[in-house]
């Protein structure tokens, strides 16, 4: 049986990768994927803890997170499509017209 600490490590690595992706990449789709990565890092941690404590709540949270992430992706992709239609680009650095 794989020790729980492995899951922690994997989750931390995934989260770090996701955060790095959000901060570094300029492609909106990639950023979204990175966000998903972070969410799934959190999900992994949830289920890991759920098994460790043999409690079902962690798994239930994961379902909620997946559902919310799906909804978020739907909204987010719609926004990205709308932006793409006007700007012909999904480089988020070009979407900086609200700067002071």
């Amino acid at each position, binding site marked *: 049986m794989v020790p729980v600490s492995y899951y922690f490590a994997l989750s931390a690595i995934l989260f770090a990768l996701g*955060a790095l992706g*959000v*901060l*570094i990449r*300029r492609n909106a789709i990639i*950023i979204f994927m990175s966000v998903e990565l972070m969410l799934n890092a959190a999900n992994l941690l949830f289920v890991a803890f759920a098994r460790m404590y043999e409690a079902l709540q962690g798994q239930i949270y994961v379902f909620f997170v997946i559902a919310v992430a799906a909804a978020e992706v739907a909204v987010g992709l719609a926004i990205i499509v709308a932006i793409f239609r006007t700007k012909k680009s999904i480089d*988020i*650095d070009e*979407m*900086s*017209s*609200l*700067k*002071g």
Partner: protein
Amino acid sequence: MDAFNLVPWIILFPVIGLVLNAAIGRRIGERGSALIAIAASAGSLVISVMQYLALSAHPEGAVVYLADWIGIGALNVPWAFRVDTLSVTMMLVVSGVGTLIHIYAAGYMHFDVRYKEDPGSYARFFVYLNLFIAAMMILVSGDSYLTLFVGWEGVGLCSYLLIGFWYQRNPDGNKGIMNSLAAKKAMLVNRIGDFGFLLAVFMIFWAFGSLNFDEVLPHAETVAPWVIMFITLAMLLGVTGKSAQLPLYVWLPDAMAGPTPVSALIHAATMVTAGVYLVARSAPLFAAVPAAQTTVAFVGALTAFFAATIAVGQYDIKKVLAYSTISQLGFMVAAVGMGAFVAGMFHLVTHAFFKALLFLGSGSVILALERAHHVQETLSNPKHKKKGHTHFDPQDMRVMGGLRKPIRLTFWVYTIGALGLAGIPPLAGFFSKDEILADAWIENPLVFLLLIAAAFLTAFYVGRQLLLVFFGSPRSQPADKAVESPAIITIPLIALAALVVIGGLINLPGWHPFTNWLAHTLGEELAEPTEFNFFVALLATVFALIAFYLAWIFYGRTPLAEKQVDPLKQRLGRVFTGMENKWWVDEFYAWLIVRPYKRFAGFLADTIDWKFLHDWVHDSAVVNTFRWFARFLANPVDLGVIDGIANGLAKSATGLARGLSFFQTGFVRNYALVTFLGVVIMLGYLVFSS
């Protein structure tokens, strides 16, 4: 006793009358408005007679409380009516003579408003006349000095309104402002007197703590004599104003500018006697200080003599009567000053009869001439091309003469009035004047001398007037064509003539019903019956007859011809010029008071107000200070401080915004990094702080 409770109606009737006339008088025509006014006055008369009858049964009288009026601290003045023998005497005179004069005025004003070309004023006249009756009733029926003062001022107002009744004209009928000036003069001169009266009222309250007669008069002995002295002398000033005594008499001759019924009612029979009533009402106060009494007596006696001398030199028929009124008021004031309160009141009553008769008679004479003049003008100028009349003064005795025949009835009643005034027995004036003279004979020889001299002059100017007006031959065309006045005018004259004939009965020597009547109010010691002094009566009568004879020598033996100088002037020279010009008293007052006052007013207006206050204080000092202050507020305060604060706030806001906008890069990744770092820091804090 129920009749006493009706006493408020003596005021309410005239008030109702005046309100009706003021509201609908112009619409209901002359007949209607005259009827309302006469009914109102007659209503007062009926109530007064009822008071008289009730008093005969209960001579102690009553105080009829109507309402609370003033209650401030210790001052408590109810609106109450005092029904006693003194006030009812005045009520009867005011409403009796007043009603007769109302009837007379209904006829007289019919012509007057037409000759003055203002028929709409008919109702206005009766509004004023009823207002006067109401005010006079307040004066005589009030139970306190303050209610008396209300009436006092009220009759003063009516006097002013009625003197200036033809305010757009001069006394001679032409357009001008002399009537208004006369009204103003009456008002202003009376103000001086009223000031004295007010001082007396204040002093009474200060000394007695009350203004009600019942709480003042019986306690005269308890107050320091100098206080009473002050009160009575201040009151005397009021009397000299209202009752036209020296030195404030000057308004009364000018008051003849009012229509003749007004001269009869207000400026002869009733209002001007208010001063005498006031002294009689305050009899206990005056009795307490003999020095004040002597002053009053001398003021009266001097006025009686002084005014009589002026009356001798007048040509205006009403001016003679005006000075005669002043002179007779002097008799009354002298009488009440000598403590002969009954004699003064008696003379007041009889004088109301014969002087009202004389004034109304003179009105009838004036009207006769005016009507004749009017007819003559219309005949000579039928198409009325010329507006108004040619100049003709119907009051000038020099244009009269020979009126005995055309206006026979007026002549007879006028003669009765004149003989009454001159004190020929057995007419009313003889008894009352004789009572005053008999009192003076006992009390004060100097006053007696002045009064008997005045009586002598009275008979002389009365004879002169009778001879100038009615005898000889007409000295002008209107006098030749004079027409007798209608019955509505002559009937009041006849009634008054009857009163003059029988008026002496009310205080017949040896019987003294009037003395006993007033004794109920004044008390026995203040209303002692005067013994009939046969010597004094004979002396006065002989003097009067001598005066008549002298008048006949000057004016009767060879009647005055047209445009002839007064024969007395040739004999008396300068003295007559003095009489003619009223001893230049008006000019003296103008020199002593009016002109310095005007100069002072001019100084105040030009120098103090205009040059100092306006030019310097306002235009220079205040304006410059204000400008400097405004500039100070505008520049350093507003621009510097206020704007500085506002602009500084705005500047700091934009500066802050500019600084903060540095963080607003617009790059989502920036924000994400900041959020990330923030989360790291917070987590780090949470992990490491515990």
